[in-house]
């Protein structure tokens, strides 16, 4: 799956969880840029992302996500290894 496709999936998930009509995500996006993305919704987001892509993050991996780009790279790596 290329990163554009991953972003399309992610944007859909973010809209559902954060109850928004539109969410724009880029490599540089962090939680501080998106209203409503806090500790509580972060868990729901990670959970939905894992389910959508059929992958499982490790705590260490989540801890190292500095932005959405890091998460996308991790998703790609996991999908490639499947």
């Amino acid at each position, binding site marked *: 799956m290329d990163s554009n496709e991953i972003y399309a999936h992610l944007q859909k998930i973010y809209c559902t969880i954060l109850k928004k009509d539109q969410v724009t995500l880029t490599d540089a996006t962090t939680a501080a840029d998106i209203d409503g993305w806090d*500790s509580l919704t972060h*868990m729901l987001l990670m959970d939905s992302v894992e389910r959508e892509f059929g992958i499982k993050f490790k705590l260490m991996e989540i801890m190292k996500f500095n932005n959405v780009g890091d998460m996308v790279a991790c998703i790609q790596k996991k999908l490639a290894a499947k």
Partner: protein
Amino acid sequence: MSFRSRLYNSINNNSSHNALCINGCYCTYKQLAERVAVVQQTLIQQSGSLDRIGIVLSDTVDTYAAIIAILLLGKTYVPLHPGHPGERIQQIVSQASLEVVLAASATPQLAHIACVDMSFLPSVSSTPVLSDGDFSNAFAYILFTSGSTGIPKGTPITYDNIDSFATGFYAIGYQLTPQDRCLQMFDLTFDLSVVSYLMPLCAGACVYTLPDKGMKFTNVYSVLEEHNITFALMVPSILSFLRQYFSEIHLPQLRYSLFCGEALSADLVTEWQKCVPNATIDNVYGPTEATIFCTWYRIDTTGTVGATNGVVWIGKPMLGVNTIVADDEGNLVSTGEKGELCLAGNQVTPGYLDNEKNKTAFFTLNGERYYRTGDLVLLHSDGNYIYCGRSDHQVKIQGFRIELAEIEHHARTAFGCHAVAIVATSPQGINQIELVLETEATNKSDIAGTLKSLMPAYMLPAGIHFVKPLPLNINGKTDRKELAKLIATAI
């Protein structure tokens, strides 16, 4: 020995040890002492006779230096959170009669008040001062909690209150040394921060705060793991967040794992025990009014946990704390019957700043002055207290105490309709606030924006719902239970 003397000695005797680790940067006791001395000099010069000092909080060495400077001088600190709405800060400033405020960087706009930017104070090589005198009845800090009328409620805690807490803390057996590394995960407007920085600093240990970027629960774990933390007081919701990763967590260096601020789930803590094989795990309980915490329950190392309805007991009173269970009229209930937990002893505040509130919150029985906690408990036959919920509409969300009535007050005033705040549990088992407005559906982000300008972030609802008309119970009052059911299907 008073905690002030302990703190003073610790700062002088541990010069080369690390005192603080903030965003990965260490600060030794010597460096901290220099900043404490500078702040003290400024306070003595600029506000000689003023006792109450506001501190605009930031995650900096200077914020902690300011707190220590004030405590060693026997004055009173009032934490001000720069992220809270301006009107709320102004209410605190006027209720606490603050005339001078210390800030570690850019300062908020505060009317009629002198503001000292500590970042401009040059470091000098002098040493901190410990003021002589009897400060036992002086206020060490004043913390403001949610008030049901929309006005924050100021609770002063005296030097004697803190000394009594410290005596109880040591009597439990917590022994911190200069080799300990301690977690400080709390906002400084919240009294669990006091035990998290003060007890380590009194012992020459190092205090680790959370990085300001990223998610709180992952930050908590990364600090625990990276810095081999040995003492950690946390809110139970951190465990709910981390639960799905427990199999990856192994923290053998943790000696003390304390939980406070919310109901602790017995299942969760039993699983946590495997992650922290060498830790003593205690569930501690207490309101701000009785200084940080005042009862404690130790989780047995064999895995048997005293719990009722899946919630770990809050245990027995600390040394010097007297407890009774009373009914609405202040009469004792029979052992084993449910009632309101009332607290007496030297940890209990002398009373709120607003004297009106003291009439209902405190009462005297057999010569002892008791504080009504509003918490319903049962006394188990083995002497442990069992927490059974609140007698009013106060709730705790991630440890923050919130009057649902305050949220309702702000929403009602802002939107001109009936507003009901209820607590709902997310699928992950985390409590969150949901706000129901009795009006036609309208733009939720506008509503959220308005609420943000009125209340601190921890009070903001996770979801907004429109229900018209509101369901009523048989007495014609809003049926909160029915609403809760409605909302549960919507989150």
